[in-house]
């Protein structure tokens, strides 16, 4: 360590250098990016089974009252905001977490039953369950003997 232990400033200089160093080795695209500034936020994972479509998004720091989820026909909209006020008088060594408003609209492959859509936010992860409309659910056709 290059700093002397009694110097209060250099301890935090060291921290600052170390944090900077952590990012030097990163390849393109992996550096600190403001998540909310990217065109597609939030990132989505969507999967399905016979009954429903499921959409999941990581939204840390977004409270339920700042989040709106709409499902109309075959379109899902996730809209919200994450606000963190800059603290006056504090010195930021790192500011990677994005803030602001976001809207994401995705077209789903099938119509969903908008009345039965459910959304849950837990530990900063949003899960939307979108039951498929009755007319698109796989239906077993009874084969009649001739």
């Amino acid at each position, binding site marked *: 360590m290059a700093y002397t232990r009694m110097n209060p400033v250099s301890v935090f200089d060291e*921290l600052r250098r170390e944090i900077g160093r952590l990012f030097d080795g990163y390849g393109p695209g992996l550096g600190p990016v403001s998540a909310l500034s990217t065109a597609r936020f939030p990132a989505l994972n*969507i999967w*399905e089974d016979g009954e429903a479509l499921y959409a999941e998004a990581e939204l840390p720091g*977004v409270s339920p009252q700042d989040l709106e989820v709409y499902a109309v026909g075959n379109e899902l909209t996730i809209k919200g905001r994450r606000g963190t006020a800059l603290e006056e008088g504090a010195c930021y060594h790192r500011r990677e977490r994005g803030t602001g408003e976001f809207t994401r609209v995705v077209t789903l492959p099938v119509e969903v039953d908008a009345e039965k859509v459910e959304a849950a936010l837990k*530990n*900063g992860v949003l899960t939307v369950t979108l039951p498929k409309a009755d007319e698109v659910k796989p239906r077993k056709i009874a084969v009649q003997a001739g």
Partner: protein
Amino acid sequence: MANETAIKKPESEITRTEHTRDRMAYTPQVDILERDEELLLVADLPGVRAEDIDIRYEQGLLTLQGRVEPRQDEAATNYLLREYGVGDFYRSFRVGEGVDSDKIRAELKNGVMELHLPKAEAIKPKKITVRSQ
């Protein structure tokens, strides 16, 4: 069945100690700000429960780890869109020895952790009293 459980358990314990190093981990996004009395580290840890966070501060090295189990059976799930991966979070910082390690505390809310690192008395400006004899 009882035998099977008895045999499997030690194996899974070994896996648990190792996987933190072997499994790929995501780097959480953080804000770090310095106040008069403390450093505050704010980290996005979506999907991490409080009991799955492991914070260590040893010899000036702060290590932050959040364990995240898969939320779906990835092999059996029929994904239509996959824009992010789900897994552990890991990041470490060299903070030096200016932190009062006994008073470090953390809070977790909506997938965001706030870690308070109070500055040690030793690095706060200190007035030395000279005693006369």
